[in-house]
């Protein structure tokens, strides 16, 4: 049975237009979310001897934090910076849901101490938005339906970003390999792979 594809007949311009207003709203929200808890963190830091100062650069912005040495990068990103797009699923370096970029390389942020990220540049899913523009990978994941429940999606997209930074024109085999460190229980793999290939095409 052949059916006409609605999404593929959309031009890129139409597609962007469709998402325009939603994205603008969400950027503002991000700013509020990251401003509030920081205040709390700094207050706490002043009277806690177990903490170590940390200058953490996340999504192009440097945060002056004070953290316990045993805290993981994932915890600091989620709790102190309230960037909740990064997910903790296994906390075991197995599933890839906490994937962020550290100096452009994909890392499992549950398996890195926050202090070890000092002096490096961290990019989370929130950092992929360019102003009002969705990142090509984000567009591709929507267009190619590389999502079901969406919980693994930020990690998938960050792993894909690291892959495309290294290899902007990957073959399907490279994508299968590059994405194999990120579990998706909904089993959206075929569409995740298609999404990454689509982004590589349009990037």
């Amino acid at each position, binding site marked *: 049975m052949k059916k006409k594809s609605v999404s593929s007949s959309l031009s890129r311009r139409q597609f962007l237009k469709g998402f325009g207003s939603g994205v603008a709203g969400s950027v503002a929200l991000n700013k509020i979310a990251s401003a509030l808890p920081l205040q709390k963190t700094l207050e706490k830091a002043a009277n806690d001897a177990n903490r170590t100062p940390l200058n953490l650069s996340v999504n192009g912005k440097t945060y002056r934090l004070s953290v316990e040495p045993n805290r993981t990068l994932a915890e600091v990103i989620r709790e102190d910076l309230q960037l909740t797009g990064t997910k903790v699923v296994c906390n075991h370096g197995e599933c890839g849901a906490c994937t962020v970029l550290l100096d452009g390389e994909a890392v499992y942020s549950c398996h890195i101490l926050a202090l070890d990220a000092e002096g490096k540049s961290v990019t989370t899913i*929130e950092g992929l938005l360019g102003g009002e523009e969705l990142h090509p990978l984000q567009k591709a994941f*929507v267009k190619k*339906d590389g999502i079901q429940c969406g919980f*693994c999606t930020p990690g998938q997209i960050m792993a894909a970003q690291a892959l495309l930074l290294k290899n902007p024109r990957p073959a399907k085999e490279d994508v*299968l390999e590059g994405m194999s460190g*990120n579990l998706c229980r909904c089993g959206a*793999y075929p569409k995740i792979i298609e999404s990454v290939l689509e982004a590589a095409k349009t990037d």
Partner: protein
Amino acid sequence: MRKKFSIVGKPVVRRDGLEKVTGQAKFADDINVPGQLYGVMVRIPVSHAKILSVDYSAVENHPAVAAICHAGDIPGAKKVGPIKQDQPVFCYDKVVTPGDVIAMLVGESEEELLKLRDLVKVEYEPLPVLTDPLKALKSDAPLIHPDQKSNLIVHHRLRKGDVDAGFAESDYILEQTYTTPFIEHAYIEPEAVIAVPREGDKGVHITGSIQNPFTTRKIVAKVLGFPLAKVRIQQAELGGSFGGKDDIMNILSARAALAALKTGRPVKIRYRREDSILESYKRHAYHLHYKVGFNKDGKIKAMKIDVVADGGAYSSMTPFVTWRTVVQATGPYETENVWTDVRGVYTNNPYTGAMRGFGSPQPIFAQESIMDEIAIQLGMTPDEIRRINGFKPGSVTATGHKLENHDVNLLTVLETAVTKTGFSEKWKKNQRRGKMLPDYAALEEISANPGPFILHKDDFLEPDEVYRKGIGLAVSFRGCSLGAEGVDAVAAYLSLQQDGSAYLLSGLAENGQGMRTTYSIVAAEVLGISPDDVFYLDLDTGYVGDSGPTVASRATLMGGGATRAAAEILRSRLENVLRQHWNLPENACFVFRDRQVYAENNPERKIAFAELCDLAYNQAVNLAAIGWYAGPKVHWDETVGQGPAYFTYVYGCQVAEVTVNIATGEVYVDRVVAVHDPGTVINLLGAQGQVYGGVTQGAGYGLWEEISVDKGFIRELNFDQYLIPTSKDIGEIVPIFVEGEDQYGPWGAKSLGEPTLELTAAAIANAVRNATGKRFFHLPLNLEEILLSKKLHPTSKNRGSA
């Protein structure tokens, strides 16, 4: 003649895609409320014990502990459960499985509480541990729940015809036993819930990773002793469920609510993966014995089926899960004489409940394996034997239900899959290679007698000889929605705005499957608007009628039906406005399309949909409606297991092509062609997603996944040991939809989520048989099973280098 749709059946991008790709979607643990406390569970490392005393003195005055919650705090029901109330919210007399919780420490620092919980002193008397359901059924077995007569949870019987006569008339009889393991849902998002005490008499508001908010509400209200209306449950964005965020979330919500009311502060519970796998319920492990009588011409004469399902420590959904098994256990085959017993049994294993498939993947693995064995014995191909016995229009099921009033297209899906894959030729070619896989013995036997395992020159295999190709198929029929399980009705609220945009909310829950998008398409199709004009509201039990649970692949069928009903109410109101406005007769018909409305016989005279909404609004027309869709009555006689169990059915056929490495035992799935009849496809992208997901989970079930227990303790507590498929583990998946006519649901749309999962393991097992010449009886078909016909488990509980 199929209806022409403008949106239905086309690929429509997800309505919730934007928030999900930007990381902004708020899952339960992403929500924080000022002043919130955390709850941390206290457990004891034992599978079965009598609790003698609990001493909180080491923690009760600790500054990090704001409150301790235990059974004594519960004003209402201390034990809960969807069917039998046998599961304590907090254990007080006994512990019956290692996931059991005795108390919850509540405080500001989760980290501190995790350290403190070990200081709670529990004195207990260990009791004999029952982990084998067959032993638990013996009359002298200790009772897991002493207030019950035996360890039997439920016994479903189905009696049709005369099986003894059927076997006497049969040319051949085949008798085989199959087993399947416990399976973890492994939803990527671990459980999380936050309960907020509300002002005055407003009760409690709970937000969480909850699959079935209305069920959760019932349980929480019972535990708190509150009227239902004082408990509001809101579903956070849900990170996968697959049947799994039901009972566990009901209990976690009840604990969070108790703590919130006790402390007067918001309380959050969030599980780590280890907690999640330890305490959450599993898919039932089954023990299946089949005896099948058949004739030389391939016709099945009789089936006697004896199934024992390991219900684990609590009954949960076991009575319903095993009921689906008794209805569907023969598979989609005409059988005059059937005798089926399905028993669900208590053990000290992790408890089992609903999981995608719900009592069907297990019997399908057994029944489809046996059908292939019958074909091989008779020199037929697997498709031939299924053509002879498979359901046709007018066939009568094992429950005595005559299949009519819908497209009984079992043979259509079979032919489609067989043709698409060139099944018969490939199967025959592989089959001719004969038995190639040696019968390895268990390791201990090898070390005792290594002779046969020392390789000689003749044993050398050319590298390409190591890889064996196989192809296998499996078919099924599946009753849609709840059937005779219970009330089957759904509400949908649709509210049009003055500018033509709309709010939509159904009483069913978005579990990640894409339901919001599907319902938006249904509403948009009726009103001739775009799915982008429909804004889906967050599900809150306070805002929409109780629609039952989002289970049984009923969301598209039932909730789609309700959404269509709501949209049609509003459309008819708008049509009335337009008839008056344009002075048209009462029988004038309209076309709603592309955000325009025009009279059917005069496409030139148009009004924009938004303008029509504005017109109606200004005439004080009610632009909000509640649609209601109730399933037709079904009937079930439980003494003999007869009756029209479900009001309609779907059919599916999957063909798996595999490569088996006979040196390592590794099975690689090269391709799965999945042919399904979802009635009508509403959302093509969502439907494809269901197939990809179902096949992937089904392959995991077939090849890797197993929750194994050692004296009731789960060995696999995280994804380093519990292996779920990755992007590299499965080759191509090809979804094919054969649509049929059905009177139910929105434009005949039925079920798809579960049918896609239930077939894959069986198809793979048949493909492995075709590749190796050997039948495997115990899932999963992992490396050890293929090489040694048994599972190897680590003898030490230490993990990693510990």
